[in-house]
């Protein structure tokens, strides 16, 4: 499952609407054999045409009014990007996972295809899944495992998208590493190993990936080895 492409902008339409003739040509009259009846084009008095026009205008107005307006961009960058990033960093430092998630979502909304911001949002979801929230006391952030797992699934899907859309090797490696870490944390050593191996194979400079490969491979052989 990937979220690939789900955030791409809409495509522009192909030009304007095709024009239609304002008046249809009258049907040709039948030649030779008289038909049972030849329908003549109906003629309406001017007041009826005016009434119909007003009615059409009213209907159009009603349709436009009832049609939901496009969602307002609640994350419009009224705050400079650098300030938003600073705010996210401050929230992370304070372990305010919800605050960090809010800032990550705002940042990402400014540039939906930005891989770094996708990773930032994915890891923010992950942090909320695992961390606690400010509630005046210690408690889990999520009410139950369904909520927690739902956030983790969203995080993994977005990381998968980020890896697919990454334009640089560094961005790709970061997205893959975060997926690997998530799988490792969730207790899936085979999946984690596969992701770390993929990074190590493509990015020979990734020391961390190679370290994690060695660590997991050793524990797959002997799970009782110490951490």
């Amino acid at each position, binding site marked *: 499952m990937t979220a690939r492409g789900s955030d791409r902008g809409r495509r522009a339409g192909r030009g304007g609407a095709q024009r239609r003739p304002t008046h249809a040509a009258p049907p040709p009259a039948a030649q030779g054999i008289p038909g049972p009846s030849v329908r003549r084009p109906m003629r309406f008095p001017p007041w009826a045409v005016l009434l119909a026009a007003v009615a059409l205008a009213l209907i159009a107005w009603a349709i436009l009014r009832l049609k939901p307006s496009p969602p307002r961009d609640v994350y419009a960058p009224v705050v400079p990007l650098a300030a938003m990033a600073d705010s996210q960093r401050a929230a992370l430092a304070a372990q305010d996972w919800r605050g960090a998630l809010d800032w990550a979502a705002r940042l990402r909304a400014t540039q939906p295809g930005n891989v770094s911001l996708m990773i930032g949002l994915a890891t923010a979801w992950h942090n909320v899944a695992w961390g606690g929230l400010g*509630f005046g006391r210690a408690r889990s952030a999520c*009410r*139950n*495992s*369904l909520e927690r797992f*739902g956030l983790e699934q969203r995080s993994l899907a977005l990381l998968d998208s980020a890896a697919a859309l990454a334009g640089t090797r560094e961005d790709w490696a970061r997205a893959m590493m975060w997926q690997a870490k998530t799988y490792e944390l*969730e207790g899936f*050593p085979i999946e984690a190993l596969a992701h770390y191996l993929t990074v190590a194979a493509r990015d020979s400079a990734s020391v961390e990936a190679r370290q994690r490969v060695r660590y997991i491979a050793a524990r*797959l052989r002997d*799970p009782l080895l110490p951490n």
Partner: protein
Amino acid sequence: MFRESYVHSIAALGYPGARRAFQVGPGAVVSNGEVALAWDLGSGGGAVTVSPVYFERDGVPVAHWTVADSLHLVTFEAAAAPARALGDTALMLSVRVEVTRRAPGSGPCEILARLSTRQPDPHHLPWDAPAPAGRRLAWSGRAVLLDGLVAAGVDGAAAPEPGAQEASGAPPHGALLTARCVARLATGERRAWTFWMPLYRSGLPPQSLAGAAAHARVAGDSRRLWRGWLGRATRLETPDTLANAAWRAALVTLIQCHERDGGRWVPIGNPFQYRDVWLRDGARVVRALAVGGLAELALDDARTFTRFQLPSGALLSQRGQLDGTGQALWAMDQATALPPAPDAARELLRFAVSGRHWIEAQRTATRELKLPWAGLLPFGDPRDAELVRAQLVGNDAWAIAGEAAVASLAARAGEQALAREALAAHADYRAAFLAALARIRHADIPPSWQGPGRDWGNAAVGYPTRALPADDPRLAALARRMTAEAGGTGLVRYGPRDSLHTYLGADLAQWALLAGRPEIARRWLGDLLSHSSSTLGQAEIVHRDGGFGANMPPHSTAAAVIVDVLRNMVASDTRDTLELALGGAAEWWNGTRLLGAPTRFGTLDVTLERPADDVLRARFGTVRVPVRVRVPDGMRATAALTEGARVVDGVWVEGAGERGEIAFRVVPVAGGRR
């Protein structure tokens, strides 16, 4: 009233859909987790005794208890029910307190109702409740406001006392308010007051809440609704009244341990501290609900489990618990098998097939990586249960059960090719499992292939996963070792020697039924019920002295295994034959009825009866599979009385399912042995 085995008498008043439950006890106290309402008898009658809490005779969870001194007897009746004004995630609690003067002559009686933001231990602060410190209680007429919202109400005849502790701010031990209930009573005379409490604080006007809390309405609704739930469930009636009550109490726990999430039912672990979803517990709940005739809940729970599925097909509710995939697949099969539901099977099949692919991918990976235990699942680190990072035997056993479940689901859904594929994979996996067991040369079945760990998933190898057949001697050895370590009870221990586990031994009890050792199962059940609360709820782990710490009863998995064991004692569809009376208790033949029991072979009404001293008869309706009846302990079958039936070794009587009954002649066996 049943005996209270625990140090503290605790009961839960909840209802499916509610997001919390009221806690009754310990002592004369009720709580919604945020505010507690306690009663003291203040009339100078000397030593006060408080009874354990108990539910009603028919299992309806309306709580009763008494407080008594030498002068008065106070009876309490507490009921919780949904109230339209509060929405479908909350409840209203109403408590009727009635005092009777039992001393000669007349005299004053005083009951103090105390409201506090702290409650006596053991208790659990709900996930959605703020910390108690700094919260403020205040009177508003006869309603109690907690931080400005209505949290409780007292009887119109109770006299609220000024909140003396309000003036000093939030006291360190929680805010405290008192209402005084005073009466002058003659001998035998009675006086009653009522109190109420919503599950969550409410912004509704106190008068409106008080109206919704009228005791007759709340208690009446509670009885009506719960009788409705229990009326829809399978009925079990045996000559053992404790077993009958345990069945109903377990159903009540299973039903109330349900929340709604995403439009579906969700099984939770406990009404208090485990309001969360675990696949390992939820799967047992699904099985028990299906067995108990509550298919709608069971199926919804199974559907909820699909939300735990990753794109790889793995199903995981808690990190590192790799048994979740097999358990979820097994639960999907159970929910669609009891009774058979092909449409539901088709609906869940794609999730199950995906789960099976994950299992196979893991097995392939451990082979390709040439791991020491190849062809099995990789290590798990459950941080619970086995408490070790290792390749866990239980994970493989559950995955094997998952493979079998997919085969069963696929066949039910009419996907024969998928069924054959899953069956082949199941056979291959079982072969790898048996080879691994042969390789370790362990006396029984260890928790992990590497050896270490606490006994947990390995107890499920015989039942319900059936990774090993019941006659495998290693299962008998495992049961012997685990019960021996518990030292003199039919239960097993978990961790320290003084800690008994209530439901962990259930799979061994089930194995015992299948292995023809019903005395082991009966002993486990008997000891479990003697380690239960007075409302027949079970804590998860019990100290030998009856303490359970903060791990309060009732636990839904304990309830689930009670239902499953009791049902299988009467009618078991575990194997390809309908097996009756596996429990082996002679007295159960004096009139046992299991009515409306869903099985893989259809929904059955089973009766065990003794029409004559030397004749036993089992009736079961009509099934298309062979039937065999276990002759009770202390007897031997001498002749089959039903046409086409036959006696085998004096222990079994086999017959055709189409006959609908099997009757046979028995003789007592000297010393109870055959």
